[in-house]
């Protein structure tokens, strides 16, 4: 009798979830945020449907403030793998001049990410969207189902979720309703990195330490990725050895000082870390129930 390892079990579960979506939904899409979780998600999807090509496109909701290296990585991976990539930008937000510096993180995320995502889902009429969120990331995510039903207005009702026993998913919905599906729900940050190492999955180089131009602002190290970041009085750009634990909009993502230039070193650092992964995310910390509220409003 074969006994599967922990990672083999997680892999099989994720593949099962993806196939279930493709077998039961009309028009699925995979949210591709370019981070390590998205890389793992994409890798699993290639496995799930092999030898067929991906039976759905990737969607990147671009806030126009992502690290340049992320965008390069995104375009290169899509080309190499021959997958269908949709990039959506909320043009109204751009026209209104929304940006993370002067509009604040909250409004920027609402308009460029949450609104942008809803626009894209509505435009293309996607009825199921895969996301790479994990339950170990955040306390309201720990409460979410793998198949998370959203109303036609994209709202999540956390108090009234469907029971989800075993690996049996109720995939029925009314017209207009859709699912957010989280195949990595049961993975932890450590599982993701172990899997990246084991399967040799390419990830954005920003996860590894390198000398980068950073500015210390409100106790967080922000990388000056382009000239749009204007220095405040007293601030100066310094070259420091840093890396990132999660990736998002560069003005909202704190860097860690680190010497970890290899995967092994990153793994070691993560195992001994005493702060959580999302600690560097500016948006998570505005208000205790902040993530839940964003999710209710349609954020992933």
């Amino acid at each position, binding site marked *: *009798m074969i006994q599967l390892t922990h990672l083999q079990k997680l892999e099989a579960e994720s593949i099962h979830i993806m196939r279930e979506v493709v077998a039961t939904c009309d028009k699925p899409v995979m949210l591709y945020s370019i981070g390590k979780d998205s890389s793992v998600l994409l890798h699993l999807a290639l496995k799930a449907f092999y030898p067929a090509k991906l039976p759905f496109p990737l969607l990147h909701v671009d806030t126009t403030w992502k690290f340049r290296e992320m965008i390069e990585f995104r375009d290169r991976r899509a080309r190499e793998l021959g997958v269908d990539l949709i990039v959506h930008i909320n043009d109204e937000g751009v026209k209104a001049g929304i940006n993370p510096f002067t509009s604040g993180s909250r409004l920027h995320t609402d308009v460029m990410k949450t609104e942008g995502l809803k626009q894209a889902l509505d435009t293309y009429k996607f009825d199921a969207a895969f996301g790479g969120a994990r339950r170990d990331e955040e306390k309201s995510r720990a*409460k979410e189902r793998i198949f998370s039903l959203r109303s036609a207005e994209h709202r999540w009702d956390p108090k009234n979720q469907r029971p989800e*026993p075993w690996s049996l998913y109720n995939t029925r919905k009314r017209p207009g309703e859709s699912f957010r599906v989280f195949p990595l729900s049961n993975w932890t940050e*450590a599982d993701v990195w172990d899997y990246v190492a*084991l399967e040799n999955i390419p990830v954005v180089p920003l996860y590894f330490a390198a000398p980068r131009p950073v500015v210390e602002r409100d106790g967080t190290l922000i990388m000056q990725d382009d000239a749009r970041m204007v220095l405040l009085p007293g601030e100066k750009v310094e070259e420091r050895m840093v890396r990132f634990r999660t990736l998002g909009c560069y003005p909202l993502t704190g860097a860690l000082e680190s010497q970890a230039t290899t995967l092994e070193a990153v793994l070691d650092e993560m195992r001994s870390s005493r702060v959580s992964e999302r600690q560097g995310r500016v948006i998570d910390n505005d208000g205790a129930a902040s993530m839940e509220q964003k999710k209710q409003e349609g954020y992933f």
Partner: protein
Amino acid sequence: MNALQDPKIEGVAISAPGGKTLLRLLTCGSVDDGKSTLIGRMLYECGAVFDDKLGALDRDSKKFGTQGDSLDFALLVDGLAAEREQGITIDVAYRYFGSARRKFIVADTPGHEQYTRNMATGASTADLAILLVDARKGLLTQTRRHAFIASLLRVRHIVLAVNKMDLVGYDQTIFEDITQSFQTLAQGLGFASITPIPVSARDGDNIVARSTHMGWYAGPVLLEHLETVQVGPQAREGQGFALPVQWVNRPDLDFRGYAGTIAAGSIRVGDRVRILPNGQSSEVARLVTHDGDLQLAAQGQAVTLTLASEVDISRGDVIVSGATSARQGLELSAHVVWTSETPLRLDNRYVIKLATGQANADVVALHRVIDINSFEARAVSEVPLNGVALVTLRVDRPIVFDDYARNRVLGGFILIDRLSNETAAIGLVNSDALADLARASGWAEQVERRVIGHIGVAGSQARRRFLRSLVADLLVAVLLAGALGFWAGSLPVGLVLFLADLIIRSLVRALCRRWFRPSEGVSDGGGI
């Protein structure tokens, strides 16, 4: 082939990175018994709470906490705004942590009766349940209900955590009394082990460190027990192979693969297989994966296989081989845990989803509802939210299943309300329960059940339908017999005709119901 797919990795327990084994568990028990506090405390003491989250906990405890200025560990797990405001758990939280010896996936479930279905969700994948009891209150209805549901879902190991010992002066006799009553309650629930531990979740007594207040307790502390308890493999040896087909992979005309997760047993290239329900047979040609073909695959793996000959297979079919106990049928008996606000009624029609199969299902018989206090059966006409019942379902196309006790994948199902799409029940196939019931109950009860099966339960739609047709039949028979009897000029002839008409017509109707049951097709796949 890459490292991840190396099938040489063997062992009894599921190994996690670093050679650690994995234990899946849940906390359950009545409301406010301290489940979330216990898990929060354990996460904290195992170092699974990051410093920034501890800072947040400190702030939250001051704002929402029930423990004055000290930390309220429940807030580490109660992650929804409504939960924090009300100080209760509403939905399951899944937490992942490890100790030096094991990895744990914990489902912290709500104690409120209203949210029992969320407890059942957490229990469905667990090997062990920590059942909490408030030392001041002892066993409550909800404690019994959770013990029963855990047993139904075959959670085999129980830790009876008698909590809040600090509030009863760490009294040994209270602990022993509760343990005793639980042993009595658990008779017949078939747990493989019951381990009682006196704890104080709030203060951390006997959670990770041994309590200094309860020198009389010599057993293991909670974490120590969780690290060492042997739960045994979930996969059974020697089961025949079963693969519920999830998705047909057809990238081009030359390739036709059947994708799915193996529900039981193992398979090799070249093995003979049968397809249920249609009974065709073939041979495994390839076990295809992205990392190269496999020679052997087993339970739990998500695979794509191709067959040597052209056979007609679609989603919901099951590919089997060897001595499988999976079988097909149109009728199945099962326990259901009702999860919808709208009660189960005999006349309602649902959609059943079992493994990858789906069909319309009628509840054709409601044999009994289990009384949570006595665990006894009662004959009733409906099952309310959180009720547990034994039912017979009839589906409108053959479905492939097994007993839940033998296989969780092929024996577990959900019923979906066709109008609201909500999940109306969590079900467990149990073929023996009906026979057990018949053996256990007297003939009078059996006759009553039979008759009720025909005429419907008082007040039900079936009963109204029965009465309506009875009245119509009587009327027609009287008219017919009267007319013919008058024409023949003989009363006995009229009477005979009256009776014959009544009997023949109800017979014909019964047969029609049996044979020509109208079936509404259910659209599978595409966009339901």
